[in-house]
């Protein structure tokens, strides 16, 4: 079953074309990895898919579960099953992790026609999910991402993912800044989400995470689109040769 289909997408920001004629299809049950040089437009792609308003799509289409993704508001995309773990998670002073997540979880439940969780039910859920990821209860009371270390922010993204249980998760450098233990925790979180109904798109620069996750497909992304696709071995090949040889191919 096709979960995400992107067809000839061209998009940019601030009058600058960054994604050029990009196409990709992700089926349920698959894990895709995207690797590419700095500034190639990987984060831009993730923002466009999540619906950030300053990014402009000039042509192309995208569907999530057959729904026209580009017509949907960011919150609709999220509630329809898309999740973006951001490269740079945003700090929101004055909003606690638990309050933030309670709104997010209940928004999704409401969208799905489920009753909203009350404070007690939610906190129980939150605490057990946090515990699995090695996040302390103290952390949940803090203002979200305010003063969090790089690794703490990434753990927090994974916590959100594990609570929201997206059908399609895009992880934009979820592994950057993580210590070895945290990397394992993130990989476990990801693997837990890996079912026949779900799919993942992992943007990364490193093989460490891919070793733990073992993607079904690896894509090399440059100059706004995929220049080469392969299986997990492509990532190893890339590690040996660098981007240079792949870029010269085009």
């Amino acid at each position, binding site marked *: 079953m096709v979960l995400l289909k992107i067809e000839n997408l061209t998009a940019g920001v601030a009058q600058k074309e960054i994604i050029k004629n990009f196409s990709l299809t992700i089926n349920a049950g698959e894990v895709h990895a995207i690797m590419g040089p700095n500034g190639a437009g990987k984060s831009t792609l993730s923002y466009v898919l999540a619906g950030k308003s300053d990014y402009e799509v000039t042509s192309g289409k995208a569907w999530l579960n057959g729904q026209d993704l580009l017509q949907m508001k960011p*919150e609709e995309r999220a509630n329809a099953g898309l999740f973006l773990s951001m490269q740079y998670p945003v700090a929101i002073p*004055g*909003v606690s992790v638990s309050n933030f997540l309670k*709104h997010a979880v209940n928004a999704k439940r409401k969208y799905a026609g489920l009753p909203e969780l009350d404070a007690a039910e939610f906190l129980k859920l939150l605490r057990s999910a946090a515990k699995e990821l090695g996040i302390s209860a103290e952390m949940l009371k803090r203002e979200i991402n305010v003063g969090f270390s790089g690794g703490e922010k990434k753990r927090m993204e994974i916590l*959100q993912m594990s609570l929201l249980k997206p059908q399609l998760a895009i992880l934009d450098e979820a592994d950057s800044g993580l210590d070895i233990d945290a990397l394992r925790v993130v990989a476990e979180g990801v693997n837990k989400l890996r079912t026949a109904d779900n799919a993942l798109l992992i943007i990364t620069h490193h093989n460490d995470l891919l070793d733990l996750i073992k993607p079904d497909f690896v894509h090399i992304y440059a100059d706004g689109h995929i220049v080469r696709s392969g299986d997990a071995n492509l990532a190893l090949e890339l590690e040996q040769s660098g981007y240079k040889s792949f870029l010269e191919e085009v």
Partner: protein
Amino acid sequence: MVEDNHNITLWGEDIPWLFGLREKGRQTTKAIGLPNAKTEAWKYSHFAPTILDTYHIDTTPHHCDENCHCHDEKASTPFAAYYIKFCNGKLANEHFDLPAGVTIKSLVEAIFDGDAKAYLGKSFDLEKFPFAALNTAYLEQGVMLTVERGTVLDRPILLHYHQHYGTPQINHLRNIFVLENRSKATIIEYFTAESNAEYFNNLVNEIYVREAAQLQHYVWQNEAVAARHVALTSVEVRKDGTYNCFCAQSECVLARHESYIRLQQEGAAAEVNGVYRLMHSGVSDITTNIAHLAPHTVSNQLVKGVVGGAAKGVFQGQIHIAPDAQQTEGYQLHRALILSDDAEVDAKPELEIFADDVKCSHGNTCGDLDAEQLFYMQSRGIDLETAKQLLIEAHINEAFEKINDNNVKTWLKKNF
């Protein structure tokens, strides 16, 4: 305005000093008039003086029916308090179930008994405060509250002012709060009204915080939308005394909270914090003037505002540090969210520092909601409207956190 009201009779015109004080109020009002665009302290919130003609002064006794809140002990707050109730600008109860060490008298009684004379009109110059001068010309309604040496109140004292619908009325209210040495009290002033009421509350509080006394003063101007509210709170703080004020302003035509605070002796400290949120067309004004007149005095201010629609927020903060007030600290921060193109915020910090060994800072920021934060929340499924509300709440909550009394904090956060 003043001249038009010769026909009204006030209590105690035969008491020479009282007559003299009112006369001074009348003469000052005549001489300085009402604030206009050139009046610095009213630059952003003055209004046409003719507007005052639309209000009348009611000196007849007020009789409200039994359904009025002032007959209902628990109508005001979800926590226990000593209640002082005003209805249409008139003191509605004169019996207060008070613990030892605290006295509350109607202002008239306090004048009659001779208690008020030493305090009334003693804490500020009428010439500087046009509405306080007008208030002085008509002073009669209000209370005098005295907390004796070393007395620590177990519950807050709540002054609940309520206004009914009726002919537009101006209420000149005057209170005196005296906290003797080492006493401790919490005073809440809560203003409510029938939603369609039109009126003008012109309030003056004179507050005397004596040595090592502590006053927590909470004000919620939850007036009707068509109301005007102008208040001057004049405070003297002596050695090691503390005056902490928090003011919450809700939607109305004009809500002005002006604090005039003298830190007179070493160790005196004051805080003025507050929030305002106006989403339609009103004006909210928090004006402070804090004078550090002695060494080792400290002041802190944090005001968070939100304006939308065509509303206007005003913050004017003056910190004055006298030449010999060394090792003082004065901090001031105002942050406002401006949610629409027609909304406006005017902020004017003024620091006058004449001592050299001081720590002083002021800050002011105004802006829209943060697009990155909104997107982050939306990307987690939270709809845009809820995301905005969360950010607005977060913005305001920072100021609410300054409230020391947990009951008051919970009550205000929930109902504001």
